[in-house]
């Protein structure tokens, strides 16, 4: 079964193909699709290709349906591993999740930073 695809264009000009249904996890993109203010290429002007690639990976994993089954437990484990990144990456993932309105990724990033502060695994200024 073919599903509709759209293209996302990162701030440094790189193009990424993603299923429309998956992209709808980003409320900002969902609104653009619904408003039909896109000709299949959506610019994501504040997000670099490196970070956008990770965001898409996250959205693909979290687009759970009959074709992509995943238990809550497995998803939780995957999320934990996914966030094993340095501060630079977490910082930019959080900003991307904020700009694109991906609630679950934003909450995950918040909790990751909070846990790092909690555990004193934080490089202070």
């Amino acid at each position, binding site marked *: 079964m073919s599903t509709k695809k759209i293209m996302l264009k990162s701030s440094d000009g790189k193009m990424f193909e993603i299923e429309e249904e998956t992209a709808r996890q980003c409320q900002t993109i969902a609104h653009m699709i619904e408003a039909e203010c896109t000709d299949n290429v959506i610019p994501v002007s504040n997000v670099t290709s*490196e970070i956008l*690639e*990770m965001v898409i*990976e996250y959205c693909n*994993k979290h687009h759970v349906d009959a074709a992509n089954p995943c238990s809550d437990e497995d998803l939780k484990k*995957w999320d934990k*591993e*996914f966030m*094993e*990144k*340095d*501060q*630079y*990456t977490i*910082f930019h993932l*959080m*900003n991307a999740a*904020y700009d694109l309105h991906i609630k679950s990724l*934003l909450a995950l990033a*918040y*909790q990751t*930073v*909070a846990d790092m*502060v*909690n*555990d*004193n695994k*934080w*490089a*202070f*200024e």
Partner: protein
Amino acid sequence: MASSSSPPAAMEVGESTNWTELPPELTSAILHRLGAIEILENAQKVCRSWRRVCKDPSMWRKIDMHNLGDLDDMDYNLEIMCRHAVDRSQGGLVDIGIWYFGTVDLLNYIAHRSSNLRSLRLIRCSQITDDGFVEAVVKLPLEELELSYCSFSVESLRVVGQCCLNMKTLKLNKHPQKENDDDALAIAETMPKLRHLQLCGNGLSDTGLNAILDNCSNLEHLDLRRCFNVNLVGDLQKRCFESVKVVRHPNDSIHDIDIGSSEDEDPYDFSDIDLMSGDDDFEGYYDFSGASDFSDYDQFDF
């Protein structure tokens, strides 16, 4: 790592991240996931913009002084820290939780400065006397009260019920008790507006439970876990389920009750995240080491 895309070299060497550029609402959302101790000991040292958010009174409407009870191993004085957190709320404090420490003086300090306090949680606070507890609590417009593993008398409970006329939530958790309906009768007599009642380990019997059901007609949640003197069968069970939306049975699992851990006192294994920390680079940066002058916190502000 689950991520298939390897981060660029700049990230691997830890390219500097300017956390000051994070929108304040994001910083605030992160900080709301931390307890008061972690904010004061760690989070406010991340950068100046975080420090600014940490000083905002709205951050201190809810204060959670959760700790593991290993007070002797701490490099800071929780009572001083708690007073400072209360000061930062600038009278806006609505919810506070105190674990393992606390004195009558601290409780009065909170009561005098927090006329909007709606929720008070005292967990394993053995130093607070009945008289001191009552003296402080009668000044407050409490709607929620938790007294878990504390040793306050039934008289104190009754006075609280008589003074706090809008009490909607009461958590009175204990280690399993011998049969005794005093708490239940005091609750039934003085807290008719209760909606949520948690009595884990209480000694109440069918008599006490019936008194609660007779008098607390708004009850929606009733938690009777480890209340082994209640015989929740037949008519009493039927009555419970007809009048209360959610009932937890004496033998239901207690894994979701966070009571702190004290192996010698409690046979159940409750694991906690180790929240204690100490960063040598910041020694003296924020001194809660036991100074007795509570009146002036300017030294803590940046």
